[in-house]
């Protein structure tokens, strides 16, 4: 059995995503795995989601959620790295500490964050760099996510720039090291820290305490997390406790070893010959996901069918989403929403059509951004060892009855 077929028929047990894979079809990227069911156990503040791990929690959002511009908090994906995540935060005592090369060290309480600074909002997509990793062949190392390690929310908080201005950055400072509260089992394990160059700080980079009008869910980084619109989620540090301003870049495991792609034009390599130089994943590429219909859905012949989904990129903005019903021979424009949530958010799309032939029908969606960059066919996406940045044209197969 081909690996892809194995995945298609693989059963899911006890809330765990199933294992796939036998003979590899070398080098041909395909559609991500899409047959996984949500578990039967709900995690705190969540509905049951596709469950890969409980410690640390790894939860994926099912495809059908990707018809709305804002992903509900209780269906928003979850990804932590360390086993020891604080399960209680004293909101009166919690502080965000700003130190290092600053004129005045700060310990900002949640109350101060909400009252002493200008409050801003930004709608932005949060996507794991390994989202859709299960598309790669041979299997790339890491959790074999389907297409649901992503979500879009309206984040409310305070500009990181405003906080740093309050502390006063000393001359010669260039870098910020942002650290969250998750801890490893062993003292020697590297902490999950993200370094940001001060030049990366535009007005959209915020420390957020609210998501879609509610407190951040615990599993999404309560009480505060970093929001860097347009950038992959490994940079969006959760449960921020400390920000240190420095003049030197310190090599870090997660940035310089884990979340990296080959530093060449195609960001690609082969399993036999890995590219020696790597770079951290950073800005997201253009992508779309069909939320409805889902694989295996039945549409009625000559009915008014509608395709719905979401499209986004790293902040240039979506120009167009196109739909093909003939295997990519012809493409037709879908209708986009107003875009009022801004260039970092999902643009929802819809496309109406009448199925005119019985049997299997492939629905393909392709997003094009304002720079003219468009999604490639999945088979044209080249392999990288971490299975990062998959953005193939999404394909859903339905049956017309």
């Amino acid at each position, binding site marked *: 059995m081909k690996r892809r077929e194995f995945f298609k028929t693989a059963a899911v*047990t*006890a*809330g*765990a*995503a*199933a*294992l*796939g*894979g*036998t*003979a*590899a079809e070398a080098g041909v990227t395909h559609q991500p795995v899409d047959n996984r069911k949500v*578990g039967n*156990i*709900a*995690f*705190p*503040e969540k509905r049951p989601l596709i*469950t*890969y*791990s*409980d*410690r*640390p*929690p*790894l939860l994926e959002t099912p495809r059908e959620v990707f018809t709305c511009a804002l992903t509900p908090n209780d269906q928003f994906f979850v990804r932590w790295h*360390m*086993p020891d*995540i604080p*399960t*209680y*935060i004293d*909101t009166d005592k919690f502080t965000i500490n700003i130190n290092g090369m600053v004129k005045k060290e700060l310990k900002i309480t*949640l109350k101060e964050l909400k009252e002493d600074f200008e409050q801003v909002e930004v709608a932005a997509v949060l996507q794991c760099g390994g989202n859709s990793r*299960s598309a790669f062949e041979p*299997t790339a*190392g*890491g*959790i*074999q996510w389907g297409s649901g390690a992503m979500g879009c929310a309206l984040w409310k908080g305070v500009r990181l720039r405003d906080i740093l201005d309050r502390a006063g950055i000393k001359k010669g400072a260039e870098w910020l090291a942002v650290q969250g509260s998750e801890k*490893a*089992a*062993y003292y*020697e*394990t*590297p902490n999950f820290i993200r370094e940001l160059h001060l030049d990366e700080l535009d007005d959209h980079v915020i420390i957020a305490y*609210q998501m879609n009008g*509610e*407190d951040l869910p*615990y599993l999404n980084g*309560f*009480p505060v997390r970093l929001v860097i619109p347009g950038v992959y989620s490994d940079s969006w540090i959760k449960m921020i406790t400390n920000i240190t301003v420095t003049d030197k870049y310190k090599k870090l*495991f997660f940035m310089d*070893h*884990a979340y990296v792609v080959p530093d060449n034009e195609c960001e690609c390599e082969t399993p036999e010959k890995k590219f020696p130089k790597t770079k951290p994943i950073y800005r997201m590429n253009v992508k779309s996901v069909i939320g409805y219909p889902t694989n295996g859905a039945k549409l009625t012949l000559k009915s008014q069918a509608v395709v719905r989904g979401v499209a986004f990129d790293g902040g240039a903005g979506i120009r167009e989403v196109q739909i093909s019903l003939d295997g990519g021979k012809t493409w037709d424009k879908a209708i986009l929403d107003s875009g009022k949530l801004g260039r970092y958010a999902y643009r929802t799309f819809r496309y109406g059509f009448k199925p005119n032939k019985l049997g299997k029908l492939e629905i393909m969606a392709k997003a094009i951004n304002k720079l003219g960059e468009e999604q490639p066919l999945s088979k044209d996406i080249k392999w990288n060892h971490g299975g990062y940045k998959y953005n193939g044209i999404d394909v859903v197969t339905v049956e017309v009855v």
Partner: protein
Amino acid sequence: MKAMKKVLLTALIAATPMMAQVKEKIEVPYIAFPIKMGKGFDVVQANCLMCHSFGYIINQGRQSKKFWAGKVDKMIVHFKAPITDKDRKVIIDYLFKHYGNGKEQ
């Protein structure tokens, strides 16, 4: 009067502190992942579960011996897991036997 009540209620909700949802410790549920039993499982359990669930193992896809050796070495080198040389070999053999793709490389 009815309208008045509604206004009052709305005002009350608006005044409730936003931080209402986590007043106590949250409980993350335990999931029993269907890990395969076999030779070396006790060693896997003793070494791997310290940091992550079996979900991490069963959700990597079927992989070569080299891949699994690389994963175990990553835990030792980068994550500083105190895995002995003897246990390292037992763990790799277990992973490859139950979650391998039959290929050495």
